[in-house]
């Protein structure tokens, strides 16, 4: 508990905020063991009843599966499970396919993050510079792309890019070209869909952030003779920093975990698995190759990578002064 919180809260004096460990300041004290359970724990109980069995337990099971030998024979109960230690992990890490999938996952995610941020930021700045109607139009369009489910976004773009009856081939005059055949072309097309889905979040968040900067500050800077570039670099950028951090990390987490678009658009990972990303790779290893423990090991590795990103996120949230 940060010290600042305590003092800020203490100013309220007799506020409902009080240490649950200590006795309630006043009021109806009931007897019996139930009354000893602090109020906030009662309020958290329903959430715990859902999350512990359906989130915590599967997470533990994921870790457990990753150190077992668990394939189809074990899943159907015919063969007892067997503890194999870290051998699933050595299998995964010794497989050259894992490293190439990891590499292309990182490259794909990095490309999507950068493209989403650039498009989103440019649109956010644009929104502050245009008239009312263009602004509403762009907001409306972005909202539509944001709301569109990953599944339908994928199907629509697949139709647009279709080899024989797609609009893109018609416009470019490249009838018969299959955009999903080449590995990098397929990745690029999926990236277009991912960016289309996720730039609105960046745009609307940053636009709201820019709007929240008080005009008086910008005016004062202008009176002091600051140019547009200086105002942007010295005032807007530092003020938007906390928001930028949130947007960047959220994008990293989302784009690292892209599943539906890859799975649907490339038909489960592309020709000969050329378009696999870690998420789809783990899923295919488990449910198609029926090697559940290997899939679980990949899942654990992925979770560890994302936890590292999250740790950075939490640190920067705290540094930006958000009260946890």
């Amino acid at each position: 508990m940060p010290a600042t919180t305590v003092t800020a809260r203490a100013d309220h004096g007799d506020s409902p905020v009080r240490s649950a460990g200590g006795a309630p300041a006043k009021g109806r004290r009931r007897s019996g063991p139930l009354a000893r359970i602090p109020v906030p724990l009662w309020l958290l109980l329903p959430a715990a009843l859902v999350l512990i069995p359906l989130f915590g337990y599967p997470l533990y099971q994921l870790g457990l599966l990753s150190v077992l030998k668990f394939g189809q024979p074990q899943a159907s109960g015919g063969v007892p499970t067997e503890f194999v230690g870290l051998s699933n992990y050595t299998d995964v890490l010794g497989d050259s396919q894992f490293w190439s999938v990891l590499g292309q996952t990182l490259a794909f995610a990095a490309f999507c993050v950068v493209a989403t941020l650039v498009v989103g930021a440019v649109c956010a700045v644009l929104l502050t510079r245009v008239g009312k109607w263009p602004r509403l139009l762009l907001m409306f369009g972005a909202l539509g792309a944001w709301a569109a489910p990953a599944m339908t976004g994928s199907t629509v773009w697949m139709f647009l890019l279709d080899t024989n009856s797609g609009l893109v081939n018609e416009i470019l005059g490249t009838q018969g070209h299959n955009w999903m055949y080449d590995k990098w072309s397929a990745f690029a097309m999926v990236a277009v869909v991912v960016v289309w889905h996720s730039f609105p979040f960046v745009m609307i968040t940053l636009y709201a952030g820019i709007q929240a900067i008080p005009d008086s500050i910008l005016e004062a800077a202008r009176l002091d003779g600051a140019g547009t570039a200086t105002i942007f670099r010295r005032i807007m950028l530092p003020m938007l920093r906390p928001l930028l951090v949130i947007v960047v990390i959220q994008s990293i987490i989302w784009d690292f975990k892209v599943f539906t678009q890859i799975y649907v658009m490339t038909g489960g990972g592309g020709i000969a698995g050329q378009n696999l990303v870690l998420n789809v790779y783990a899923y295919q290893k488990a449910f198609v190759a029926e090697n559940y423990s290997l899939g679980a090991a990949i899942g654990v590795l992925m979770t560890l990578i994302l936890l590292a990103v999250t740790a950075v996120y939490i640190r920067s949230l705290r540094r930006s002064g958000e009260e946890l």
Partner: protein
Amino acid sequence: MKRDSRVLRQGANVVAIVLALLTVFPLYWMVLSALKPKGEITSAHPRPWTFAPTLDNFRNALGVSGFGRYFLNSLAVAVVVVVVSAAIAFLAAVALSRFKFRFRTTILIMFLVAQMVPVEALTIPLFFLVRDIGTVAPGFGLSSLGALMLVNLAFSLPFAVWMLRGFVAAVPESLEEAARIDGASRFTILWRILFPLVAPGLAATSVFSFITAWNDFVFAKTLILDTDHQTLPAALMVFFKPDENDWGGIMAASTLMTVPVLIFFVLVQRHMVSGLGGAVKD
């Protein structure tokens, strides 16, 4: 100088309009293609208009392919998830923003971390968990809507709690204090004072829960093994055939799936933006 800035502004307007049209075009194309007659869809020269709109594709999707059923399944799962998750998240958010207790920060960080976990990897243990639950309670086993409701509830809760916490914290504590001095019970304060004040935030949070449940593809694909209990996203895959995709049907089904989310989004869009804007003012 002045003319320059006017030209710049006009240019910016044009760019914004072009970007808006590009962004919205895929959605337009989806609805348009759903309304096109069969011949125009398979044409090698697609046109961005149609003079013979027809509901054949919708009729086909809803009737022949049973999308009406999948639509209702999706709706049932999403509505249950929204209502239950709103209630649970509200209580948890109050606990986390109105009380101080040991492990509060730890619990908060756990809610944050939970949002980062790759849920697709968790389908592996969840598949076996749901299979085992099914032997005791078939209503929540494999191929049951109950299982989808539970799983989607669990995976929409962390974000809902995290988001709702901000809305609860924004309500001035003095209101509750006044009510308490007037002798209101804890339950009354929660239900009659805090709940109505947090309602807009609850609406915004509900949209995200709705979308999580409505868009879920991987759980439905993994946990639902029969066609009767399938939901929309996974059922959409039925239209994909190796030889020739029925694009008219796919677009009609996609439209049916997108429209409810669009309506929800437009309804609460204001709350979302104002909620986010608050983050910078701290």
